[in-house]
């Protein structure tokens, strides 16, 4: 399951999706909106995606994770539109026979999302708004 959605993300839905009889571990990561950033009082993060490509890139990350680690199933859902303080912007769930693979694949997924998936966030803070932009500068996989 690799999706972008305008709805609130259902953690249990992702956990159910990756549940597997051969798995001994399920690791989840939840990215949430924090109330401050670089000294600014954050009101919300407003996410925008190139949805068709974002879902393809998320699926590609899933394939890459399966090559690198012995994992059973992976799900990534990223929310778009305004995400308020404490709400979830992204949830990743990974199942594996053993916990080390699940932890590492989950960490890999969130780090890669920040590098290559066409999703952008605008920070709405007290006194203004700004597009947050960081680019790794590293060559992207497959090119």
């Amino acid at each position, binding site marked *: 399951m690799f999706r972008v959605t305008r709805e609130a993300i259902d953690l249990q839905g992702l956990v159910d999706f990756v549940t597997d009889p051969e798995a001994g571990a399920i690791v989840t990561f939840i*990215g949430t909106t924090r109330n401050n950033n670089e000294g600014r009082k954050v009101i919300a993060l407003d996410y925008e995606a*190139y949805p068709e490509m974002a879902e393809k890139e998320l699926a590609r990350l899933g394939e890459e994770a399966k090559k690198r680690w012995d994992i059973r199933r992976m799900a990534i859902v990223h929310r778009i539109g305004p995400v308020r303080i404490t709400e979830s912007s992204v949830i990743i769930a990974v199942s594996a026979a053993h916990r080390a693979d699940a932890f590492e694949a989950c960490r890999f997924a969130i780090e890669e999302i920040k590098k290559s998936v066409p999703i952008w966030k605008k920070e709405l803070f007290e006194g203004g708004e700004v597009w947050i932009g960081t*680019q790794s500068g590293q060559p992207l996989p497959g090119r």
Partner: protein
Amino acid sequence: MKVKVKFFAILRERAGAGEITKEIREGSTVAELWEALQRDYSKLAPVDMRLLYAVNQAYVKADYVLKERDEVVFVPPVSGGS
């Protein structure tokens, strides 16, 4: 020939449009299209960030030669996650 260009995030705001159709000559590269767009939309220039190029929902290099009806996106620095 015509290609479709979609703008997202900061580039969408600067262009004042989310999607346009652009007439270009045969054999144009994605980098040449970007040069032309900067002439059409003055607020797109100068580029103060590193852009990636995507055609038909996959990343390509700047020298990618465009085809009729390609869907082109200039990808500003991504910032998904949390």
